[in-house]
């Protein structure tokens, strides 16, 4: 039976909402240069200005246009999010599926590594490492990916273990197919929905982590980010700048995470056994 994940998402109310929010955010990130007339890094003497026709959300403490920062912040946030989503899902798939298909000692080693990572609270590790190396976007993507593929790998392995017992996999083996062919043609396509969910949750986690690290001030300070905007805004909380500085950044971040959650939630039913005999571990 073919399951159309896109259809599942489109037909669920929250799913649709989430998808719209995400599309808006992506649109904002992609069209950033069009949407914002100013360079978000350009400092000026006009600091802490309230919103005006020229500066829709006013200016921050070093005279940067807050609207431009908000728009460019979406780029950082989504770039990190999607980057980590892709890499961690990829790593999870490679390790999970290979562990299931190869088995033996290799499987044991991979799965113990996964267990080890899962018991360590990731956020603490990320904070510690970031505090030392002050990661840029690329480093941050790499760091978060390396620390977040393990959960997915576990699910993928469980699923691949069940899939590899399928008749059509046995049939392919009886035609002389090697493990790579089986993984590529018979296992991974059937992991599709799980990959999608794993990916979406990976993105969500990364967006949140990126904002968190920037908020703590331990990411690259030269990169515009919603987390950093919120941090800066908080230090001027005694003024009423929070209305146009803190709130928009917070709302943008929350909306992004809510959008991802909605989409992920809507995609989840496709993993249910009633549809496929597939279960999420």
């Amino acid at each position, binding site marked *: *039976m*073919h399951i159309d994940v896109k259809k599942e998402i489109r037909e669920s109310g929250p799913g649709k909402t989430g998808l719209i929010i995400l599309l808006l955010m992506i649109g904002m990130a992609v069209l950033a240069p069009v949407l914002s007339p100013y360079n978000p890094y350009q400092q000026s003497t006009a600091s802490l200005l309230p919103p005006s026709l020229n500066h829709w959300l006013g200016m921050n403490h070093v005279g940067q246009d807050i609207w431009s920062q908000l728009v460019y912040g979406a780029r950082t946030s989504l770039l990190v999010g999607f980057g980590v989503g892709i890499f961690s899902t990829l790593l999870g798939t490679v390790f999970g599926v290979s562990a299931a298909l190869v088995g033996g000692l290799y499987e044991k080693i991979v799965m113990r590594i996964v267990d080890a990572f899962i018991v360590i609270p990731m956020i603490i590790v990320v904070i510690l490492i970031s505090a030392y190396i002050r990661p840029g976007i690329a480093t941050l993507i790499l760091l978060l990916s390396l620390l977040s593929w393990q959960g997915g790998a576990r699910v993928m392995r469980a699923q691949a273990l069940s899939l590899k017992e399928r*008749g*059509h996999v046995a*049939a*392919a083996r*009886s035609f002389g197919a090697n493990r790579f*062919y089986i993984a590529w043609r018979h296992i991974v*396509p059937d992991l599709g929905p799980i990959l999608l969910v794993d990916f979406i949750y990976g993105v969500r986690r990364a967006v949140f982590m990126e904002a968190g690290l920037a908020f703590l001030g331990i990411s690259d300070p030269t990169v515009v980010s919603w987390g950093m905007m919120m941090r800066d805004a908080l230090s001027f909380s005694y003024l009423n700048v929070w209305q146009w500085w803190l709130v928009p950044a917070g709302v943008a971040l929350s909306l992004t995470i809510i959008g991802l959650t909605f989409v992920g939630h809507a995609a989840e039913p496709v993993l249910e056994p009633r549809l496929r005999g597939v279960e999420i571990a």
Partner: protein
Amino acid sequence: MLEIKNLQVSYGQEVILNGIDLKLEPGETLAIVGESGTGKTTLGLSIMRLVEGTIRGEIRFNGKNLLSLPDSEMQRVRWSRIAMAFQNANNVLNPVYTVLNQIMEPMIEHRLKSREEARDKARELLRYFGLQENRFAAYPHQISGGEQQRVLLAMAMSNNPELLILDEPLSSLDAASRAEVASLLKETDKHRTRLVATHDLDTAGKLADRMVVLYGGKIVESGPIRDMLSKPRHPYTRALIRAYPNMTTVKDLQGIKGMMTRPVSGCPFHPRCTQAIDICSQEVPELLPVSHGREVACHRGGIITLLSTGNLSKSFGSIKAVDSVDLHIEAGETLALVGQTGSGKTTLAKTIMGLHQPTGGTVYLEGEKVENRGKDFFGKVQMVFQNPGESLSHRLSVLEAVTEPLEIQETGTKEDRENKAIQVLGEVELPQTRDFLNKYPHHLSGGEMQRVTIARALVLDPALLIADEPTAFLDASVQAKILKLLLNLQEQRGLSLLYITHDIAAARKVSDRIAVMLDGRIIEEGPSNEIVATPKQDYTRRLLNATRI
């Protein structure tokens, strides 16, 4: 007595008999067996020197080469010392003589007897062959075909020949008279040397001591007849036996793939053979001894063992799913593996296929140990799985599914692969339309899906097909169709089948041999008719009783 050396007979360009070597001991009856058109009658006529074509070689009768005898001398040998009863009674009997006169004639002509003696002898012979007295004065067209045949036999015997050649001697008799005449020939006339040319294994079995199987003008197998009928060594002999109905046959009758064609380079049977290899189409195999009194003309030494297992075992933890199994499957035969659920049948099949690692023992393919299963192995052995819905990926269309094995084996171009797949789909009687090719498994019925999986297994042109409960998920009428299809495929392609089932009734209809499996062991194995008629194990009896309605 009679010795034929390198006999070659041709009509114009067409070679009918090619290099026949035969020896006949005094008192022996030799059956010459083969399909119509293999040259049986020509052989008889050659000995009589009645053949119209060119004869080369030697036919020695008591040391004298008949072929170099002057006509006058041959005239004396013919009918008095070597006589022949022809196949086509109607054409042989002279319509203007009465039955009695027909028989008297050769005796008188050869001046062996006086008219009176000849009449008495003729009467005696006709009575002997069971012709009623009131028919003696009849003309040939006034008596039935069976009676004509009796007359012919009497005629051939009239001069008490040393060598009697019988061409389809019983073919126009009904079953009861056939048995009667056969016993006359066999019992009361057993010291005569006879050559029986027949396509009828029953006649051969009733009359002969030894059998020679002719195909395409060559001897392909010879040996003691009982031995040959119970254990044929040449694929053609087996095919003949398989095609012949008798009361012990439980399997459906099967023809032989293709048609006899002449001329053929190499082994005459190779276009229809179940185990032909390259050399078979290039060189003519010699008739070589294989075991006591048996000779086979086959480059592969007779029917080969395609796949066998030696002590094959597979355990899951402490459970011995397959326990020291020795099994062999000959090229072109069907072996049914019968046993209840959980007896280890599927595990055995999967272990043979390499889907399970054996815990012990070996698999041999064509006598060679199977170590790493590669293209060689999978190109020869393929499997059809139990549940067609499961064994087809729901993501692959019919065309994609059927081309998959070719793609894995990287055979040919994409177009070649698709053409091959379409051709095989035709073989399994599925539509070859674009519309059907693009269908997904969930658009197909159970029977269609199983046909697709069969096509997929056949697309690599395997020699052995392992069918694991291929009809378990299908209703009885579809099951019948699939089993028929498997049998047809076996006939067309000369496939070997390992048919796995819990249903001994179905096994009996499709298999040559049955192996019964219980708790991972083969407890009983033998020809299907014997297993079904006289099971030795209680368990087999239980299986049989369970299928009786």
